[in-house]
């Protein structure tokens, strides 16, 4: 699938670099007060510390909303239509948009998902979120 890939700059490029280096989703966290924040900002708006960095997250999240697109101006995405884009609330608090490999009617608001990244070159990583498999859910419910 060939889709639009942006050329990030500034602190958004730093975010992508750190995700790609860690081979997992990282989110900006304030070392002073511990607050997680996305999208990345210049400094911590909670305590005004500039001691912020990108830290790996658990990858666990919940679907807060989903956009189901039947048309796209992007030819690559148009081939996939209809497709869902998920608004995922991470266990750490911040929310990210994520592509998903499941059909729109197989994922609903409130479902638990696991998040991973898919690097495109050195400067951009796409976030994906897929439903936690039923086996995993059963394990979780028994522990």
């Amino acid at each position, binding site marked *: 699938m060939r889709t639009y890939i942006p050329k990030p700059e500034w602190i958004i490029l730093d975010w992508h670099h750190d995700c790609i280096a860690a081979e997992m989703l990282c989110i900006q966290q304030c070392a002073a007060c511990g607050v997680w924040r996305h999208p990345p900002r210049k400094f911590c708006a909670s305590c005004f510390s500039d001691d912020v960095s990108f830290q790996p997250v658990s990858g666990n999240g919940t679907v807060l*909303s989903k956009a*189901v697109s039947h048309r796209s101006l992007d030819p690559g995405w148009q081939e996939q239509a209809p497709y869902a884009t998920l608004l995922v609330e991470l266990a750490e608090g*911040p929310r990210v948009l994520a592509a998903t490999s499941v059909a729109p009617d197989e994922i609903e608001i409130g479902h638990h998902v696991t998040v991973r990244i898919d690097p495109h070159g050195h400067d951009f990583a796409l976030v994906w979120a897929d439903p936690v498999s039923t086996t995993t859910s059963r394990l979780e419910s028994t522990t």
Partner: protein
Amino acid sequence: MSTGFWGTTAIVGVGETDYVRGSDRHVCDLILDAAMEAITDAGLTPADINGIIPPPGYMSTEEIAAHLGVPDVAYHVSVLMGGASPTASLQTASMAIACGLADNVLVCMGWNGYSALSPKPDAQPTKRTMNLGPMGETVRNFYAPYGLMSAAQHYSLYLRHYVEKHNVSEDAAAAVAMACRKHAQLNSKALMRGKPLTREDYNASPYIAEPLRKFDCCVETDCATAIVVTSLERARDLAHPAAVYLGGAEGHPAPADEIANRPNLLELGIHRAAPRAFERAGVQAHDIDVLEIYDCFTYVVLLQLEALGYAEPGGAGEFVANGNVELGGKFPMNTHGGLLSQGHCWGLNHVVEAVRQIRGTADAQVKGAELALVTGYGDLGDGSVAILGSDR
């Protein structure tokens, strides 16, 4: 009124082109035509204009002034809130007038909203572009890579949440679409005049980005509109009854530059602007005679009606049912057809219609309309409100 400022300025001139798909005219011609019509409608000449608020892109104040023959621009400013810009501009124009920075302010809007994406085969596309403001960077970096390029897709992120949280029925959205289309049948310039919309048509229309069907989305058009704002004192000597700017406000969600990380996805700019606007104008929601609500998408209208206090969160469906927002109903809404059925001029066409309602000269006139409320909505949820009244 809370201060001596509110109610001291008025809209005295309006101009608008036809709303078409595939104009034979250059976008600059459209903008200048609407501007000249507004100045003439006010009974003024370009020499009387000394303040300009230009469209967000396409033409600069400098160019507009030079083409119109405005000899002395004393004040200009750009307002960049997407579709919330024109209604918010009334604040800025009125402040400039009240402070003595300018006497007569021209506010312009115009674009090739249809031809930019679907040019005629033989058309020479313009190299002029609009200023995307805060949307550009966010969409480029965070939404477009996930296949979300259009406003319908971006807004569907919270409209889907809205529909599921409050169990909003499609009846509510359809009622908005059909009221606008019904009013467009009465508007001489509406793109959708002569094309009525039935509930069956609505139900049969395909999804663009759920919950938005084709007929939940506004119509892209080539068009331009303009207004002239002046002091109420000067307005009383001019051609038409003044549409007094009684009060207005803008508001921005937090963060305004990104949708996903707002604590409440459904708290938009208008939720902050609405109470400010009512307080400034010294009126209440139930006092309003005619509503011109920014209708880029039907569900966005429902959210705004709730923010304005016409219904509880999730309850706007009842407010728009049973013809309540149609001509003859208690709160006629988008009497020109709105963005959904007249055409998309960033809501300055809503301001133009509100002025006509106050003057008593609208194509679909609300009998005895003395108070009109206009909203603007733009970018990723910025909002603006203006309350206009007759000079009683």
